[in-house]
C-alpha cells in the first residue's frame, strides 16, 4: 500500500493477479452463458437470433469451447496459485468455511429480525463471500467435467452408455443455469445494489476499498491490518 493510498484511506483488497483472474472469469462466463443458453433454449426466438449471430450451431460451439478452455485454464491457474503461492496460501486459509460462518449467518438473520444486538463481525471474508466462492468453484468444476465429457463424445462413448451422456447434457445445462442465477442475482446484488456498496464496489477494477468500508463490513480484518500497522 502506497502512502497516497493510506492518506486517502484506501486498502488493497484484490491484487492485480486476482483482478485479472476475476475479469477473465466475468468475460468468459458471459460468453459461455450467451452461447450455452442459446443452445439450451434453442426453441426461443431470441436464442435462435443469438445462434444466427454467432454464425450457426457449429461456430457457436467453437466460441463456446474456446471460452471454456480459457476458463478451465484460469481455474487450473487459480488452484495452483491458491495452493502454492505466497499470496494465495493465506487467502486460501481465510476462505475455508468453519463453524463461525454458520453462526455468523444465523446471527445476521437474527440481527436483521431485531433479535440480536450485534451484526456478525467478519474477517477478510464473510459467509456471503465464502458461499459465493465455493459455490462458483464447485459449479465450474462440475460444468467443466460434464463439458469435457460432451466435447470428447467419441472418447466418452467408449466408456459410458448413452444415458450417461444424456445426464451430462442436463447437468451441464442446469449447472450453467444455477451459476447464472447465483452470479446474476446474488453476486451482482451484493457488489452493486447492496446499500453498503451502491452503485458499485470498485475493488474489481481498482483493487481497493475504503478503510471505512472495511471497518463496517469486515471489522476483524480491519483490526488485524490496524494491529499490523498497515492502516
Amino acid at each position, binding site marked *: 500500500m502506497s502512502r497516497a493510498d493510506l492518506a486517502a484511506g484506501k486498502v488493497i483488497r484484490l491484487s492485480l493477479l486476482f483482478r485479472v483472474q476475476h475479469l477473465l472469469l466475468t468475460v468468459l462466463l458471459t460468453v459461455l452463458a450467451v452461447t450455452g443458453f442459446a443452445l439450451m433454449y434453442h426453441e426461443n426466438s431470441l436464442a435462435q437470433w443469438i445462434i444466427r449471430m454467432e454464425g*450457426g*450451431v457449429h461456430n457457436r460451439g467453437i466460441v463456446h469451447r474456446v471460452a471454456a478452455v480459457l476458463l478451465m485454464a484460469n481455474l487450473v491457474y487459480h488452484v495452483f496459485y491458491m495452493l502454492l503461492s505466497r499470496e494465495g496460501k493465506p487467502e486460501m486459509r481465510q476462505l475455508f468455511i468453519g463453524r463461525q460462518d454458520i453462526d455468523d449467518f444465523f446471527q445476521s438473520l437474527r440481527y*436483521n*429480525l*431485531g433479535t440480536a444486538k450485534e451484526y456478525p463481525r467478519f474477517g477478510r471474508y464473510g459467509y456471503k463471500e465464502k458461499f459465493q466462492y465455493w459455490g462458483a468453484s464447485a459449479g465450474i468444476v462440475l460444468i467443466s467435467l460434464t463439458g469435457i465429457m460432451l466435447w470428447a463424445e*467419441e472418447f466418452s462413448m467408449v466408456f459410458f452408455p*448413452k444415458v450417461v451422456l444424456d445426464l451430462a447434457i442436463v*447437468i451441464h445445462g442446469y449447472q450453467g443455469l*444455477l451459476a447464472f442465477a447465483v452470479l446474476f442475482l446474488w453476486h451482482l*446484488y451484493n457488489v452493486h445494489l447492496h446499500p453498503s456498496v451502491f452503485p458499485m464496489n470498485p475493488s474489481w477494477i481498482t483493487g481497493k476499498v475504503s478503510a471505512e468500508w472495511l471497518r463496517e463490513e469486515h471489522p476483524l480484518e480491519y483490526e488485524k491490518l490496524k494491529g499490523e500497522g498497515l492502516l
Partner: protein
Amino acid sequence: MMRPFLSLAVAVAAAVLFLTVPAGAATPGVGECMDCHGDRTIEKSLPNGQTVSLYVDLQAYRSSIHGGSSCVTCHVDAKAPHEKLKKVSCGKCHGDAEKSYAGSSHGKLRAKGVTDVPGCDGCHGAHDIRKPKDPAARTFRLNIVATCLRCHKDRAIEQKYNLPDQKVMAAYEQSVHGMASKKSGLTGSAVCVDCHGNHAILPGDQPRSATHRQNIPTMCGKCHPGILEQYEKSVHGKGMRAGIAESPVCTDCHGEHTIAKVGDPSSSVSSRNIPKTCSGCHEKEGISTRYALPKNRFSSYMDSFHGIAVEYGMTKAANCSSCHGVHDILPSADPASTVNKANLPKTCGKCHPNAGPNFAKGDVHVEISPKKAMGVFAVRLFYTIFIAALVILFALHVGLELYGRWSRRKENAPGGKEGQS
C-alpha cells in the same frame, strides 16, 4: 384398220374426259388440295365471329410422319372444292390409342362435345405430326412439357376445370426431373407423360390413374427399379401393398412436381427438412396409436443435439433417415432393421466409431418423463427445485437485510418514526 385408231381415240377421249371432268367428282390429290390450302390467307369464319386459318404448310406436311400419304387418307370425304368435312378419325389406323384416349379425362370431355380439351391434334399436331423420337415432334420427350403447358399454364383453363395452379406447373420446371430435361437436356428424365400417362391420362383420385396412390410406387419404379425393390421390402412398402392408404408412397416424402435432389436444401428429403417430412405422419396422434408406434419421436429428436444441429444447418448431424434408413425402413422389432437393438452399435458407428454395445444401452429418443428416462427427469427436477429454492432464499435474504436496515433506521431516527425522508 379401225382398231388401232379406235383404241387411240378411246384413250384420247378418256384422257380428255379425265382432265375436263370437274375435280370434285373424284378423289383429289395433294396438289389439288394445295391449290386452295396452300394460300396463306385462306380462312373460315366461326359462328362466334372468330376466324380459323385453313392454310396447310405443305413443307411441314411433307416432312411429317404422314407426309407420304395423301390428304384423303385422313380427310376421307374431301372433294375439291368442298364444304365442311367430317371429323378426322385417327382411330382408323391408331385404334389402341383412340381406345385408351376415350377413357381419359380429355377423351371423356371431348366425347361430351367440349372443344377446349385436346383431341389427338391438340398434342400431336395435325398436318405436322412427327414420330415421338423426332426432336422436332411436339411429343418428343424434351418438348412434351411445353406441349402440355400450352393448356396447363392457362389460368382460364385451370379455373374452368379446377386444375392445380401455375405454381404447381412451374414447380416441375425447377424440380430435379424438370431441370434434367430442360437444363441438362436428358431424355431419360421424367416428363409429364411418364407419370400421368399419355392417352389414358386421368386425375390421381381415380384408381385407374397412373398417379393414384396405389399405383405411384410402380410408376416411379419404372425408372427407379432398384429403389422400388428396397421400398417393397420396407414397412411402408408392405403397408402400401397391403392396401393401407396412409402408408407413404414415394410422393409423400419426395413431393410430386417439386421433387428435388437430396442435396438440394429446398428438397423435402434434404437433411434439414427430413424431420419435418417424417413427422408429417409420425407426430400425428392417430398414426402412433393405430400402428402402436412410440410417441413424441419428433419433439424428442428436435431436443437432442442431432435435432438442434440439423435445424441450424449442420447437415452432417444425424437426421431420421441416418439411423432409420431411407427406402428400406423397417420396424425396430425386425432383426434386419438398422434401429434394432442388436444393430444399433453398427448404425451409431457409422458416425461414431467408438459407440459400442455399451453405448447403445437405453433410449435413443429421450422422452423426459419418470417412466421413460427417470435419471434425466430426476436430475432436471432436482436442479429446477434447487435453483428455484436458491432464488427464493436469495430474495428472502436480501429482503431481510433491507428490512433490518429500514427498521434500525426508523428506531435511530432523531425525529421518531416519521422523521425519515
